């Protein structure tokens, strides 16, 4: 496997040694692959937000090790900021991180911190902006004059400008309407392909997982509940509804049809996939 970021027996305990002690992560093992989009799904309190903070070294695991390219990220704690450049983290509602006078300057914040020269910075800002769908005409505007969806994309561009090997996005589409959601999530595939980066998408939405991800990691109670390719995870969709996750409604339709004797085959978790399966089914029947 071509993994870049790997967690070995990682545990995280909040307020250790106080009455408020809470185990948020319990001996988690995962590896994230290059060029793949991995979905991370689970309830609030399942430990997925905690996990996100461990990936780029905002927090240090209580136990266990996070490996980036085979190297323990906490080997030299003073150089943890280097890890943060390589593991780009887009936090929830990232638009609150915008602060500079222009969108251009704001996107350039991280590249400047990286100590790059002006030519390189300019190139990165352009690339990142176009990846995130920020048009040239917006670059000289104040970030505070953008619309909600544009702000979100500008903030994402600010992380992409670091050209991270791992891009982690915590609920990047929260609160956006369908168009805004597909604009943001749709650009992730291109980033994963072009930079052969590993993209980690944290989401509550099983539909987004089905639609945009290659692999899915399901978290529950601070542990990995199940993980695998989208096909593998969604073939046992009932298992997920047991831990209270919403299965896409097409999957519900598929299982209800199966219960009534109509067995479809194929990628049965997107509208597109089910459509193909039904067309295929009709062909078979007509033979």
């Amino acid at each position, binding site marked *: 496997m071509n993994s870049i970021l790997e967690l070995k027996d990682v545990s995280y305990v909040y307020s250790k040694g106080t*009455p408020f002690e809470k185990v948020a992560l319990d001996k988690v093992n995962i590896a994230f692959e290059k060029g793949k989009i991995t979905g991370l799904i689970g309830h609030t309190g399942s430990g997925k937000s905690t996990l996100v*903070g461990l990936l*780029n070294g*905002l927090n240090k695991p209580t136990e266990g090790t996070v490996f980036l390219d085979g190297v323990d990220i906490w080997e030299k704690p003073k150089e943890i*900021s280097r890890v*943060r*450049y390589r593991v*780009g*983290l887009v*936090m929830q509602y*990232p638009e*609150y*991180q*915008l*602060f*500079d006078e222009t969108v251009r300057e704001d996107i350039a*914040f*991280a590249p400047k*911190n*990286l100590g790059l020269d002006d030519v390189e910075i300019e190139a990165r800002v352009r690339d990142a902006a176009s990846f995130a769908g920020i048009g040239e005409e917006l670059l000289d505007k104040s970030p*505070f004059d953008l619309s909600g969806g544009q702000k979100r994309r500008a903030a994402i561009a*600010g*992380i992409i400008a*670091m050209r991270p090997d791992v891009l982690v996005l915590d609920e990047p589409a929260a609160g956006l309407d369908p168009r805004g959601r597909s604009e943001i999530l749709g650009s992730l595939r291109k980033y994963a392909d072009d930079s052969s980066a590993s993209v980690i998408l944290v989401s509550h939405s099983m539909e987004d997982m089905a639609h945009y991800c290659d692999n899915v990691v399901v978290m529950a109670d601070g542990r990995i509940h199940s993980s695998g390719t989208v096909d593998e995870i969604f073939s046992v969709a009932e298992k997920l509804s047991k831990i209270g996750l919403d299965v896409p409604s097409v999957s519900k339709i598929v299982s209800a049809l199966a219960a009534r004797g109509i067995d479809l085959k194929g990628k049965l978790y997107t509208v597109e996939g089910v459509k193909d399966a039904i067309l295929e089914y009709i062909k078979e029947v007509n033979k």
Partner: protein
Amino acid sequence: MISDITLGQFFPGYSPIHKLDPRTKIILATAFIVAVFMANNPVSFLLLTLGALVLVAVSRLSFKVVFKGIKPIILILLFTALINVFMTSGEGTPLFELGIIKIYTEGIVRAVFMAVRVVILIIGTSVLLTYTTSPISLTDGIESLLSPLKKIGVPVHTFAMMMSIALRFIPTLVEETEKIMNAQKSRGADFTSGSLVNRAKALIPLLIPLFVSSFKRAEELATAMECRCYRGDKNRTKLVKLEYKGRDILWFLIFAAALAILILTTVLPYNLDISGQIYEIVFYQI
């Protein structure tokens, strides 16, 4: 972590102190402060400490929480205590002498008194006020105590409302600050190293988003309040009407008695010399 600070936080509960009228608590806290500054000898300090411990016990707050509240000021406390130890000159021979540094019994006594005074002051007032009184009822209390000023045109209600909203949003802003710091750290911002100028510069990416979001919050909150028919104190009633009850009177009496005893102890024939000797005895025994 910033969120670990308990000083100034409210811990809801149903203890006898929680149930007191906020005005009673404000008055008692004032009396307590007076008492703290009147105490001048071991006996009165012992009484005060005892009083503070009783307050903590009655409030049913855990001692841990209360002492955590003191943690943020320990450094300042130690520093001032040290200055007191070194800078106080006394009569008689110094306890310790090294070059120009002379430590006298009086210095140690004074430092200990000072430290005890500050710690007791914080414990007493926070147990009486912030820990056990919801900020809203605290402001209600202040509003009510200051209401005579309304007659001369002081906008007491407005100030009280501003204060309670400020209190309501402190935890929210603390959370927000941490969030923004993490977001900027993820972009390589460094808040902890570099020269003073650089560190001040590093705060810009933190402060601007914080201001922007606070303004947005303020605007949204104002709208939400208007939607809930807020129109200042015009025609406004209260869920909790402030009323002195039997227990308030009881507490006033207890406090008055305690204060009287304390005053008695302060005029007892103690002076620094004797208390110094007491400390010396204690020290030698250790």
